[in-house]
């Protein structure tokens, strides 16, 4: 089978000669041609009579997309998902967003513009081109300056084009043919062998990196946060006369949230004197339910029936719906959580004071649900 003609190519020694040839080509009315040079040539766009590239608008759209999504993401994080007070600043502290928004804007604008250039103009995933692997392309990627005029140009006539290229000083004027094999098996990017090779190289490099850096010579990626000028718990310190880094609290003070429990070992007094300080509101009950489900339900069951999920690994607790517990004042339930009872340990360390009181309210809800009165149904 005769190979189909792609076009004619010609080489020039200097950028000026190429520029002249391009001007002549454009003047002759050809439109389907391209110029090849080892480096960008100032003024070439205009000599080729190219319209301004629309890629700038891609960059604009992607940049705006980046800016909007970065600000949107940080707004959602700081206002909705995880509001944190940082340095006493408002949750929505926009100056802190600016660097991130700037970076994402630049990142999306540049990367996506290049990607769209490859997809739209290079017709990804098609990666074969008749000029590939030709002596012409080897020359124009080292020291030559070349032009290629495609056969699909409406004005193309092999003899005429050859004459025109030679008349403007083109050297090595010659035809380039389509590779029939390439034509039939386009889209080489998704060739199984090629993709497999890429994946294989990626895997080998990852494994070598992992073994080399993490296993053979352990290297921390970043240690700046780990190695700070600060005293760690249990560390010695020459600064204090007793040589101990950890300091006891100042005499006569109590840390916030660490009020000592006055009814240790005195459940009766706890029941008598402690009053639930929290109102019965939806948020409080929600909090109580959340904490109950987390800390109590593994042993007491989801509804307080004493149906532990621990399958006998721990003594099953009694039901919380017994008359005894229902008649207990709030303080007594609070006391069990705070001080423990027999095999049940204290949860004071895991569950804060307010959370414990919220759980008490929630247990009351469970009990009421189990012993609903006639009136509750109306």
């Amino acid at each position, binding site marked *: 089978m005769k190979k189909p003609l792609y076009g004619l190519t010609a080489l020039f020694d200097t950028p*000026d000669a190429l*520029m002249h040839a391009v001007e002549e080509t454009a003047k002759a009315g050809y439109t389907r041609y391209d110029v090849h040079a080892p480096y960008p040539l*100032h003024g070439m766009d205009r000599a080729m009579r190219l319209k301004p590239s629309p890629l700038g608008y891609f960059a604009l759209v992607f940049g705006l997309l980046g800016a909007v999504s970065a600000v949107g993401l940080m707004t959602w994080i700081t206002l909705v998902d995880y509001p944190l007070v940082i*340095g*006493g600043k408002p949750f929505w502290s926009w100056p*802190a967003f600016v*660097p991130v928004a700037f970076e994402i804007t630049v990142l999306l604008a540049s990367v996506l513009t290049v990607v769209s250039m490859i997809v739209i103009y290079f017709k990804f995933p098609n990666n074969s081109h008749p000029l590939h692997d030709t002596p012409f392309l080897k020359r124009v990627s080292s020291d030559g300056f070349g032009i290629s005029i495609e056969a699909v140009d409406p004005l193309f006539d092999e003899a005429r084009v050859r004459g025109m290229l030679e008349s403007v000083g083109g050297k090595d004027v010659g035809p380039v043919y389509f590779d029939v094999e390439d034509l039939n098996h386009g889209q080489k990017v998704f060739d199984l062998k090629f993709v497999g090779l890429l994946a294989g190289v990626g895997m080998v490099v990852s494994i070598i990196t992992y073994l080399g850096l993490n296993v053979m010579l352990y290297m921390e990626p970043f240690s700046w946060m780990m190695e700070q000028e600060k005293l760690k718990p249990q560390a010695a310190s020459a600064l204090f006369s007793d040589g101990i880094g950890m300091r006891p609290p100042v005499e006569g003070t109590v840390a916030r949230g660490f009020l000592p429990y006055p009814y240790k070992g005195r459940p009766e007094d706890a029941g008598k004197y402690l009053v639930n300080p929290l109102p019965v509101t939806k948020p409080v009950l929600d909090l109580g339910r959340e904490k109950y489900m987390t800390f109590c339900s593994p042993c007491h069951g989801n509804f307080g029936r004493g149906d532990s999920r621990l399958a006998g690994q721990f003594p099953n607790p009694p039901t919380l719906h017994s008359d005894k517990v229902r008649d207990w004042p709030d303080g007594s339930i609070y006391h069990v959580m705070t001080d423990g009872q027999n095999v049940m340990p204290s949860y004071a360390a895991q569950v804060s004071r307010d959370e414990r009181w919220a759980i008490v309210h929630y247990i009351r809800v469970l009990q009421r649900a189990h012993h609903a009165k006639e009136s509750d149904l109306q």
Partner: protein
Amino acid sequence: MSTDTQTPSYTSKTLSPQVDRIGLILLGIGVVLVIAAFVFEPVRAAFDASILYLFMVSLAVGAIFLIALEYITGAVWSVPMRRVTEFLAGLSPFLILLVIPLFLNLHDVFHWTHQEAVNADPVLQAKTPYLNVSFLTVRTIVFLGIWVLFSMLFIRNSTSQDVTREASLTTKNVRLAAVFLPLFAISITFTAVDWGMSLDPHWFSTIYGVYYFSGTVLAAVSAVTLIVILFHEGGYLPGLRRDHFYSLGALMFAFVNFWAYIAFSQFMLIWYANLPEETFWFMARWENGWQFVSVLLIIAKFGVPYFALLSQESKMNTKRLKIMAVWLLVAHLLDLYWLVMPTHSTGASLSWVELGFPVVGVGMILLLLSWKSKRYNLVPIGDPKLRRGLDFRL
């Protein structure tokens, strides 16, 4: 493109006598107003004199920087308009005139020159090795010396090339540029510290020098752009085309962004760390009406020029470039006002006292341009890169 040796034909032209006359009138009016300002409101006038000095340093020294940049990078596009930059750099010797009123009024402007204040203030005492009048004088003289020397050397080599056409003069200027650039970095930084930052001697910001530098180059590029376009329209620089204007516009746009980047960096670090010894400086600019000046500054020096110069077309549009050049020069003046004035008045205000100073500046520049155009060619006709510069394409 033709070979480098071929030089375009050039007929020497001088600016119309109009420029001379307007320059003289403006300078006269300006000087009268400035003298009146010093008579009636000496303290405020002294602050205004600082602003004018910093502004003129921006134009003159920024222009030397642009010349050095062209030589060190081997740029060709800016060669056809380099004479304009050289004319601006020729302002350098006249900076000496502008700095004299500052030294006569140091006491009115700089808190740290008050001995009794220093005695009562351990922070100022710790800073006296740097902040003292004799060292300030030495620094200022050295910096002015550097600027005057280098501007004269650059210009001398460049203008004598018009006659001799010696390529070696370009090489000489490349070497000069290599020496000048680090000296420029040091001198412009400490000028900013001396006449700007030390107004609030307790305050410090390590990026302050870069901040002033960014505005300086922006102002110099804007001034060059403005004069180049005006010359071009008047037929004095006929060879230029949109590729040249685009390059000027791109530089302007780049430094608009650079200024905003630096200004925001300075603000964000201080805002984030929230240390009282740093934040008070921004608080002073966010109270008593100064907040409007601050917002205006952001809009004027970044918002408007950013969008006005964003598109490729706008950078080739000489009319828009002209407007933006004037706009940015005014914005730079506003920037310096915003840096300096809050130390003088806690409430934002504009006074007739301010009026004369910019007028003096404009008058000086017009007279300088007219005088230089009589002495020198408006195009560096002997520069071996001139042909390529004229043929420059994007």
